[in-house]
């Protein structure tokens, strides 16, 4: 099985694998494979492979193998690990088969599967798996810790170990988890690059720029750790880590200037008009369909050129970059030596340590459709149909475009709140060979369904079943905006079949789905909480204020020393004024002149007198009260 999977890899990777086996036990190679795709896209596959002898691994001696990851693997007894971060969609109708037959990609979001040594016990394996996901979560800044028991399944037929586990294979347990909602972004790329020996500072890894990588139409980051015993008998086995980044970039989008990425309407001179249309004119332009491939340069597509080489003990024949274009296309490469191999479509480049590497290709007018991309083993779509909050239906269509039947394993993991009605499971136009089914347990375990199917030649099989949507407790809704719940993609593995050996071991994944559950209007309780909190705050605030504050009459307040100073000053001024008769006379004359004012001021004087009396009375009252209260 493993050998056939390897054979199906493209030649470049196979070449790498074989060079690895013969290289020294501590080795590191990196490689970039570039392939222009139809519809102005470019596929770039970065591969970084490091190995360490198993004995060195056991004694914690690392050179190229990342220590941080190795320690996690050692601690959790993980013998083989596969981790994927994926966003976007691979357009298999336009671009054909998936890169490396889909073996180095995952479903939308994060996917993780590993063989853990459980020492014969499922609980031990479960604990170790839990430790593994939690440690990886910290290492990769991803919410891997959310892969709990409800998201973990134990696939039966979908995955086979890639590594050589020898006799230990029997004790290993496979666990698999997916996080379809996880948004893969820069914070996952940085730790990924940190695991590399050159840490993104030299070599092809300098091309991995978050801005461009995460603007790709499809992108998948993968980490695969496995033991390899390729060599002759007696030679030591090595532990190999393959880090790969695979992406499909839109060339026009990537070629936009960094300071002005807005896709404004092109200038009319730049639009290619179809002049055969009768109405073509100065203000009317029917755009021609794009058939060729636009010009592109490596430095513009990835934001900058590759700086130097990650030159760590490699042989002279090793190459860093492969460009797969027809041999008659002019290619301008700078900063690298071109190696020639007897291949018509591949050009190999070896980076030099001191200069920066760039590739530039002029626009290519002949349509790419001439050599159409290899057709994928299978076209698969999966959709949720139905409407309303109670029920729904899952529709999966599997189209076999080939002239021979396909045997495949179809694996689905459903969250527990999506309860399938297995009696409604129908397969139209195909044959169901076997079924592995683990029913869900509310809040404990999700549904795990694996089907072995045979799809006849050139036909479309449809798999449908109905499901019920569970009602969640209000605390089980995530705290963020409720767009629905993501359902993990289905994983399809093509099995070896007498008539179609070339697709054996390839994987196809469907897109993830959105499941809308009955959702209470959370803004309503929010409003209620806000309102009640306000009322309580007001009520409690004023009550607390009343209870803790002591109320005293104004007279009980000890007189401020400043008030005495002010009164003395005022008396002093008054005394001075009283002595000066002229001023008093002036005042009196002004009162006579304006009788009204005089009256008002007199009235006011009386008022103040009254007040003074009141105060005096109050004083007396207070004295009374004190006298009464004292005995």
């Amino acid at each position: 099985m493993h050998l056939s999977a390897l054979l199906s890899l493209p030649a470049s990777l196979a070449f790498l694998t074989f060079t690895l086996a013969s290289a020294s036990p501590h080795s590191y190679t990196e490689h970039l494979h570039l392939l222009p795709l139809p519809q102005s896209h470019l596929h770039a596959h970065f591969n970084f492979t490091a190995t360490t002898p198993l004995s060195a691994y056991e004694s914690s001696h690392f050179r190229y193998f990342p220590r941080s990851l190795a320690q996690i693997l050692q601690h959790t007894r993980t013998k083989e690990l596969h981790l994927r971060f994926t966003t976007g969609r691979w357009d298999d109708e336009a671009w054909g088969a998936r890169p490396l037959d889909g073996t180095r990609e995952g479903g939308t979001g994060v996917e993780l599967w590993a063989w853990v040594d459980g020492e014969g016990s499922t609980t031990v394996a479960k604990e170790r798996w839990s430790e593994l996901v939690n440690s990886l979560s910290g290492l990769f800044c991803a919410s891997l810790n959310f892969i709990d028991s409800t998201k973990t399944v134990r696939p039966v037929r979908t995955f086979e170990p890639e590594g050589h586990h020898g006799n230990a294979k029997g004790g290993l347990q496979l666990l698999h988890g997916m996080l379809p909602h996880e948004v893969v972004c820069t914070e996952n790329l940085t730790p990924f690059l940190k695991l590399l020996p050159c840490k993104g500072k030299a070599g092809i890894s300098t091309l991995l720029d978050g801005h461009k990588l995460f603007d790709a139409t499809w992108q998948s980051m993968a980490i695969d750790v496995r033991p390899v015993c390729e060599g002759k008998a007696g030679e030591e086995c090595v532990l190999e880590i393959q880090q790969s980044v695979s992406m499909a970039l839109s060339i026009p989008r990537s070629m936009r200037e960094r300071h002005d990425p807005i896709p404004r309407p092109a200038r009319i001179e730049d639009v290619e008009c179809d002049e055969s249309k009768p109405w073509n004119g100065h203000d009317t332009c029917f755009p021609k369909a794009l058939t060729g491939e636009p010009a592109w340069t490596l430095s513009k597509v990835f934001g900058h050129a590759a700086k130097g080489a990650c030159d760590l003990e490699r042989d002279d024949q090793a190459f860093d970059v492969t460009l797969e274009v027809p041999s008659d296309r002019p290619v301008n490469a700078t900063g690298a030596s071109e190696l020639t191999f007897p291949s018509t479509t591949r050009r190999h480049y070896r980076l030099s340590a001191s200069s920066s590497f760039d590739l530039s290709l002029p626009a290519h007018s002949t349509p790419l459709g001439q050599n159409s991309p290899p057709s994928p083993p299978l076209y698969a779509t999966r959709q949720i149909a139905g409407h309303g909050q109670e029920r729904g239906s899952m529709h999966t269509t599997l189209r076999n475009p080939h002239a021979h039947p396909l045997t495949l394993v179809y694996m689905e993991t459903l969250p527990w709140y999506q309860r399938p009605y297995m009696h409604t499971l129908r397969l139209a136009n195909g044959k169901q060979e076997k079924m592995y089914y683990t029913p869900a347990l509310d809040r404990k375990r999700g549904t795990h369904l694996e089907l072995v199917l045979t799809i006849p030649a050139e036909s479309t099989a449809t798999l449908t079943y109905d499901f019920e949507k569970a009602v969640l407790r209000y605390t089980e809704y995530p705290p963020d905006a409720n767009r629905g719940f993501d359902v993990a993609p289905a994983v399809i593995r093509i099995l070896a079949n007498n008539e179609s050996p070339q697709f054996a071991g390839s994987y196809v994944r469907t897109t993830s789905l959105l499941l809308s559950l009955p959702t209470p209007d959370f803004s309503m309780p929010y409003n209620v909480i806000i309102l009640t909190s306000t009322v309580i705050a007001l009520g409690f605030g004023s009550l607390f204020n009343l209870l803790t504050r002591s109320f005293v009459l104004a007279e009980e307040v000890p007189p401020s020393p400043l008030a005495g100073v002010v009164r003395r000053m005022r008396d002093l001024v008054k005394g001075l004024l009283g002595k000066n008769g002229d001023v008093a006379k002036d005042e009196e004359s002004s009162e006579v002149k304006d009788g009204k004012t005089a009256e008002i001021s007199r009235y006011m004087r009386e008022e103040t007198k009254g007040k003074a009396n009141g105060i005096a009375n109050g004083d007396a009252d207070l004295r009374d009260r004190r006298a009464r209260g004292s005995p």
Partner: protein
Amino acid sequence: MALSARLLALRGSPFLYKLPPYLSALCVLVGIGWILLLPLNEYSRQTYVSENAILPGQVHTYFGGSEHNIFRAFRQEVYALSQQSEDARQAGVLKVLADSGLKTASQPYAYQVAGESINGTNVYGILQGPRADATEAMVLLAAWRNFDDQINYSGVALALTLARYFSRWSIWSKDIILLIPSDSTYGPLAWVDAYHSICIPPTASRNISAVPLKAGALQAAVALDYPAGPWGQRFSSLDILYDGLNGALPNLDLLNTAVSIASGQMGIACTLHNHGTHSDSYRDRLSVLGSGLATQSLGHATGPHSAFIPYHVDAITLKTVGDGWHDEMSLGRVTESVFRSINNLLEHLHQSFFFYILLNANRFVSVGNYLPAAMVLAGSFTISALGLWVLSGRDDVLVAPLAGGMAKEKVEMETVKLGSDVALVPRQSTRTIQRELFVPALSLLGVHILGYIPLWLMTSLSRENLLLGLRTTTAVTLLLPLALAATIRLTRSQAQMLQSLSLILLGALLATLATLNFSLALVLGVLAAPLAFVRRSSSALVAAAQGILLAVTSPPVAVYALQRMFYPAAGLEKLLLELAKGWSAQGVWLLWVVWGVWWPAWIVGGVVVGSGVMSASSEPR
């Protein structure tokens, strides 16, 4: 104590027995008056965007420049395609979509209604958002023929140009589906039905095929209706259509977003129900409210968007109106901005209102303010029903004086005790007579079952026979009550019970309907209002007056009136065909409500009046 004793004594008061009809009349007046109050500032509110994520008009729109040249070419192309055969047209549209980088598919559909077949093909393309995860989608609709059966040249061309322009952006969080159905009503309906269908061949009764290509959950749909020909025509304002099937409405936020973008960002005036000159006066507001009630109560599709709303996909149609200075690029930028706003949504539109009545593009009445009108109307039937039920259990002796005559004989009195309260009441008022419920209940059931005959006739006859069917139904409807009254021979008590049961059912159904389709419940409540007031009367004059009132407000007469008022040009046959299509293809409940709810209640009202005539004619013998 004194009060409770007095209330106890009131049990036998003639006043109480006389009260229900007056209360019912009050309810009807309040219900109608309530609607007239709604346009006032005190009862309506300014619209506002409730969902923070939408951010309407906050983005700069770039649609313009060379896109205008491309638009002109596409408009010519659409015109050229319109001259070709149906197959060539579809192939041409699919090619333009495929060249813009969309995944394309088509879906044929055929409906058989009233001996006619509705055929067409939906052509659509999916623009997969480059960074989207295939879980959500929004729909841009441009029907090949618009709702008025004109070819939507500029609308389709604009949609194609926008699809090409949108495909260059990587900001889309949702896929964009560009749907070009053959017609504006049944194409979108077939498509959205098939999109949500649980079975693989969507439905056996409706001959629509499955949608071969899908793209996640639909979040919103915007339809363009711009039938300007190949040389274009500028427009003065945008008419926004929002009514869904069966009176369901899209989320008010979507409408507000479109209005605020069109009028705020682009300076294009927005109208509703084609009220071009809206001075925001009471009169104009009331007339928009009236148009809204009319379209909502009919419940038929008002544009390509209507089919989406029952599936909880909020949708509107932007229709260009008049001759002004806004060009296609302005409409394109409005659409671009609306799609950017929908794209911003993190969750399904849920914040704003789903139940509202619009008074103009930026004034609305919320459900709490208008719902009581229909509820009060429904209540008028319930009150009458309760009053009749009480009367049906009373002896004639006491009831006779209430009916007008004066009882001369001495009324026997007795004391009643309730706790410590004691009261002296007529003996008759405490005695109940046996209610013979069997015949009224059976009659009511029978009449309700009979209602399915006109429903079947009006939905299943072929087009030529529809008119004949309606005439027969009218004749039978008007004569049936008399015939039933002559055969069943109800007693006074039974007639009251029959009317009471019928009214209580009508009241309950209308109250339920008011929560689903407010306008239909309101209109029906007003039309059926006389049913709460007709009484069995032996006076020939009163019976004749009641008979005429009932005949004028009978369901078949309403159909004739509907044609005269709203479709004077189209003719009755066309209207009947549209109604039949609505029932069979669109799934509109209107006909069921008319023939299954209103018609039986009306027949019962007629039987009650008729039984009075019969009893009067039999008495002298």
